[in-house]
């Protein structure tokens, strides 16, 4: 693999973590103390939610897949915290962090994991399929890269409606080799679509490292050049940097209606999903190094302690409250009922769920035996 250089890594990742060069960026200079604490609280909430999910999973209450966001919190919190009212987002299956950040409540998110009727998708979507259109959040998509054209389409619709908005379209580093992603890149650049493709690069597409999966000597974002798109590399352990560079991409979308590819370097502390024993493709030392030296929450905490925004007591109180909220969400999920069997055949067709004199469909649309 090529030695890290300006085309492969963000400048700030080439030296040990220290005070952020982006603290005084206009996107950050406007943050009040309360704003900064709120960002810390959001990251803490995501982490404690995910850690509580592990317990629920180990108790055998969560079926299917569970892809944890632990270690990547600064991306969802940093990128989404710079958005305005007409900005939207869509992501892949590692979608819990984004959901909590846009304001979905922990109870319905936790209940969804257990397939309960009180879940955010009434127990019909599961971990990979959270949606909150009222909060501009369009999922939660299970097929790697399949959401990329949808994100471009959401941004296309915003432009068609004359709104000054953009769509953050998240994907992992494994998605960049999917055809649908490249088709979305081409259309976004060709049609001046205000979409921002955010590659959350945690180094591994499931168990396959970047050097074993991707035939490009530079960064993943650099492929944007092939489509004439702007791109940038971002240190995902530094919340200030994530905010500053996302804000620049959002400005480009709003003011010039041009797309951007942001590659944000991050790390997941757990396996690809809970079914990944995480023992074959990376060593423990690597994980330990990230946890101890580059943890985005710890680094943000340190910055705020140094700025005098937080103190130890407040840190403890915030974490305790987040843990308590996650615990209550787990209890809520436990106590919630499963959907009635009749729910299986609801929410398939809008016209069927709203059948009346004005709907366009007749006849049989759900088939029995």
């Amino acid at each position, binding site marked *: 693999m090529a030695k890290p250089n300006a085309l492969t890594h963000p400048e700030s990742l080439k030296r040990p973590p220290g005070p952020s060069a982006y603290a005084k960026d206009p996107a950050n200079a406007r943050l009040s103390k309360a704003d900064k604490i709120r960002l810390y609280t959001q990251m803490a909430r995501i982490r404690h939610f995910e850690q509580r999910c592990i317990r629920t999973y180990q108790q055998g209450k969560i079926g299917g897949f569970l892809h944890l966001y632990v270690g990547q919190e600064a991306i969802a919190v940093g990128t989404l915290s710079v958005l305005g009212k007409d900005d939207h987002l869509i992501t892949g299956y590692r979608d819990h962090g984004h959901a909590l950040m846009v304001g979905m409540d922990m109870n319905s998110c936790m209940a969804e994991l257990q397939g309960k009727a009180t879940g955010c998708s009434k127990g019909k979507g599961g971990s990979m399929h959270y949606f909150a259109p009222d909060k501009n959040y369009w999922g939660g998509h299970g*097929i790697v890269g399949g959401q990329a*054209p*949808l994100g471009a*389409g959401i941004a296309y*619709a915003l432009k068609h409606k004359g709104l000054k908005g953009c769509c953050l379209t998240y994907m992992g580093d494994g998605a960049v080799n999917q055809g649908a992603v490249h088709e979305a890149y081409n259309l976004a650049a060709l049609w001046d679509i205000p979409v921002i493709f955010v590659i959350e690069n945690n180094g591994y597409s499931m168990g396959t490292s970047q050097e074993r999966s991707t035939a490009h000597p530079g960064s993943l974002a650099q492929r944007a050049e092939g489509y004439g798109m702007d791109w940038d590399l971002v240190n995902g352990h530094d919340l200030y940097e994530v905010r500053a560079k996302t804000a620049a991409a959002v400005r480009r979308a709003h003011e010039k209606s041009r797309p951007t590819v942001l590659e944000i370097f991050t790390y997941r502390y757990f396996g690809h999903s809970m079914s990944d024993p995480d023992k074959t493709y990376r060593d423990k030392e690597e994980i330990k190094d990230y946890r101890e030296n580059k943890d985005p929450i710890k680094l943000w905490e340190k910055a705020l302690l140094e700025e005098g925004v937080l103190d130890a007591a407040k840190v403890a109180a915030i974490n305790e409250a987040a843990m308590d909220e996650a615990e209550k969400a787990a209890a809520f999920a436990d106590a919630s009922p499963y959907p009635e069997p009749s729910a299986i055949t609801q929410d398939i067709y*809008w016209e069927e769920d709203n059948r009346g004199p004005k709907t366009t469909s007749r006849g049989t*649309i759900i088939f029995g035996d």
Partner: protein
Amino acid sequence: MPVLSYREAIRAALREELARDENVVVMGEEVAQFNGAYKVTEGLLKEFGPRRVVDTPISEAGFIGVGIGASMLGIRPVMELMFWSFSYVAFDQIVNNAGNIRYMSGGLINCPIVIRGPANGGTNVGATHSHTPEAILASHPGIKVVCPATPYDAKGLMKAAIRDNDPVYVMENTILYNDKGEVPDEDYIVPLGSADVKRVGADLTIVAHGRAVLTSLKAAEILEKEHGVSVEVVDLRSIRPLDEATVLASVRKTHRVLLVEENKPFCGVDAQLAYLIQAKAFDDLDAPIGRVSSIDAPQIYCKPLEDIQIPNPARVVEGALKVLA
């Protein structure tokens, strides 16, 4: 009443819906400047401009995905596939995304998108361009599929599809584009899920969809003239939703059924119909259900053989006589 071709009828539907609703956008390969690979969208760019009638690159997964994403925000994209055969490179978008998002979101989202284009064999172009995926797609709950056979139905179904709040896939037929028929000027829709009795008869029911309806009508003429048999032809028009009532009513009247489709036989639309009829009208049947479909092979290039592979009037007559025997 004005007489329009099947092509003009679809174009009239697109034009009227583009004029009616600012959210309707026509998108696809060659739909704008080129005036449509099959000229269905001819003149629409000139009339509505490039914001409403949009040329796409050859990038089906990409542009159909864009249409689905836009539809979640209330845009009503009408996407042209030059051939439905090309849908196979966009299958994830068409099935996983458009078909599942409403369900997976617990009903929070719907995708009012139309995907349309020809889905037929019989044009001497070989296997890759001759697929008829109505059964494959209709087997996915969340998706609607219609197959108009006449200009009147093409316009009415297209308008219903565009106003529908779910994904509707309209399968046209290149061989029918020049067929002419009466089409009213005024606004009308053919509701999805309503079959149509195209010919009234007493001795045998033929159920068909798409061009197979026209083949069956020709066969019915021959059966009447040469064999003295009175045949009723039911045009499904819509595969999902399905008008079970009209099919069953005809079966209960004639007591004999022949199913005709241009699909291949295995797991075709007629497999579902045969199950339905035996389950709900078993006691009304005087003979086993008959079936005529395309011969079970990839679509052959050779024109004389392709004309045999697809149901033609002679094969339908032969199939009918077996059921009547």
